[in-house]
């Protein structure tokens, strides 16, 4: 397994000082896979991504990337191989789209030399892939949410990574931009073989765009597999505490979820209803 390209987590434990964390994560994500990480707020999705990025280090257990121990890789080597698209990016002062995308070349830059032709070309290619060429000279802070998200993606692509991590890339986007963003990510995965691991909130979009779903709950993996094996009424009820109906999408054949008739009455039958709403 260690020879298998991709990223592999073995018995990974991680605990924040507050006590939250991940416990006993065993995951193997092969090269070219397209994986969504699902789970309630606080279930450890972002933590898992940061561990895969090397920003956090496991308390115990090992993470290997392409057969190499992730913690043993140099920062530069890691940043050239693995890129992360954060939920949002706020800049303290304004930069143009091109300047932001060029920041993705940081792991390739020498302290005293400016970006070389290869860096400018990589940034250009990243902007082309994300349909940003016409916006290259515009200030980032004046862009719409959907455009900004594409700029952050382009910055990650300029790193020319082999593993792309995304933290809820469709959060705060409208329906059209959600679809555009996820289609773009899927295309990058299909046409370039880029390994994609993305945390997601929307179960139906995950079912639509990802071949493999990993469901986290309280820092543990509770389901892992194709959408059929994860998006099930019993699983969703157990993890999210919401009763849902799952049926097959009439045209696409993928599992599709909607709320059960009693889902809107989560608290009405409980005695601790007011306490749960106003803890």
């Amino acid at each position, binding site marked *: 397994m260690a020879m298998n390209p991709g990223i592999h987590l073995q018995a990974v434990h991680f605990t924040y000082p507050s006590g939250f964390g991940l416990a006993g994560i065993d995951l193997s994500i092969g090269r070219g896979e397209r994986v969504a990480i699902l789970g309630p707020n606080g279930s450890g999705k972002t933590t898992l991504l940061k561990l895969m*990025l090397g920003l956090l280090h496991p308390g115990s257990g090992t993470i290997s990337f392409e057969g190499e121990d992730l913690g043993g890789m140099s920062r530069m080597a890691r940043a050239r191989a693995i890129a992360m698209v954060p939920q949002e990016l706020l800049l303290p*002062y304004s930069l143009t789209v091109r300047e*932001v995308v060029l920041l993705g070349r940081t792991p390739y830059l020498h302290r005293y030399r400016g970006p070389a032709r290869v860096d400018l070309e990589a940034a250009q290619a990243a902007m082309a892939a994300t349909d940003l060429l016409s916006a290259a000279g515009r200030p980032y802070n004046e862009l719409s949410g959907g455009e900004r998200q594409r700029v952050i993606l382009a910055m990650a692509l300029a790193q020319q990574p082999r593993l792309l991590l995304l933290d809820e890339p469709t959060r705060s986007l409208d329906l059209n931009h959600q679809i555009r963003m996820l289609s773009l990510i899927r295309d990058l995965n299909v046409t370039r073989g880029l390994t994609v691991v993305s945390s997601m909130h929307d179960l139906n979009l995950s079912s639509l765009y990802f071949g493999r779903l990993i469901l986290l709950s309280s820092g543990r993996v509770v389901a892992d597999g194709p959408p059929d094996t994860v998006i099930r009424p019993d699983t969703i009820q157990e993890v999210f505490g919401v009763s849902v109906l799952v049926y097959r999408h009439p045209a696409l054949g993928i599992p599709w979820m909607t709320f059960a008739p009693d889902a809107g009455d989560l608290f009405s039958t409980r005695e601790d209803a007011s306490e749960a709403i106003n803890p």
Partner: protein
Amino acid sequence: MNTPFFRPRHPTPDTQPSAFRTYTILSVVLFLALFVGIMQGAVALSPLTVLNILLRAAGIALGPVTWQSADETILLELRLPRVLGGALVGAALATAGVLFQGLLRNPLADPYIIGTSAGAGFAATVAMLVLPPASILGFGSVALSAFVGGLLAVLLVYRLARVDGRCSPVTLLLAGVIVNAVLGYLGSLSILLFEGSEFRLRQVFTWLMGGIAVNDPRQLLAVGAIIVVGIIAAYGCAVSLNALTVGEEGAQALGVDLDREARRIIVLGALLTGAAVSVSGLIGFLGLAVPHILRLLVGSDHRRLLPTSALAGAALLVLADTAARSLAAPAELPVGIFTALLGGPIFLFLLRRNGRESGWR
């Protein structure tokens, strides 16, 4: 909101002037500032005389000596070191301003923000009150105390802000503000406590207001070496400072060793500021405003922002210092007044011209 005259302009690689043009203009401005600085003063000399004296000092005698030897002494031994000192101090403060604004991601950061001003001020005050005016390597006891005090205060702030081996910009900023306040009041207290210190009050006050004082060529050489090396090393932080635009975690994700780079930036900023303060006391405003002015002119890429700020800071301080020692000659006004009077309107003009876009969010 914007009349055509005050057209908002965002400096982008597409619209900003070429690097060559920017550097040429700034170099010419600095050169003219240096020349005017040497010409002007209590005794005004003609440009031709200045040129001849300078050339003669450089070993090129073009014509007969048509000036008094006192003029030559004033020019070579008083004005030249002072003007060069001013240029060095201005470049150092502007560079330190860019470093701290970039590291702390805060538009209000200036070279003094993480402790230098109060550390240097407190040490200099105590030195003026109790130390004999001895001199080591051309540094007076006040200058040396200011340099050491500034560095020690930054070290203290850094240690205070470091929690579990990590040092976040926000903690650094707060620790700096607190140490600045405490040391500032300790300085005031020491003035009150020392007997006979009323007589020193004016000296302390003048020092705190800032003023360039180069008493010895060796001092100029030592400070110059620190500042030139510091500015070159600061340029090497441009890549990390740019990466820091996307935040601490973002920069780390881009492969930046944040702890090491932050330490490097703090040390360089403190050295540059300390060296400047040892020559000039606390000159305000320049280190805050010059980076903003240049951000509006050349954009926020630190590979351009750092060198252009250094050149502009040098020119601004030389001009301000020239005004400070010429306008009320033979009396000398605090140079800080003129850095604000010269830099303030430039800053405001550019800010207005750019509409609401100050370059910062």
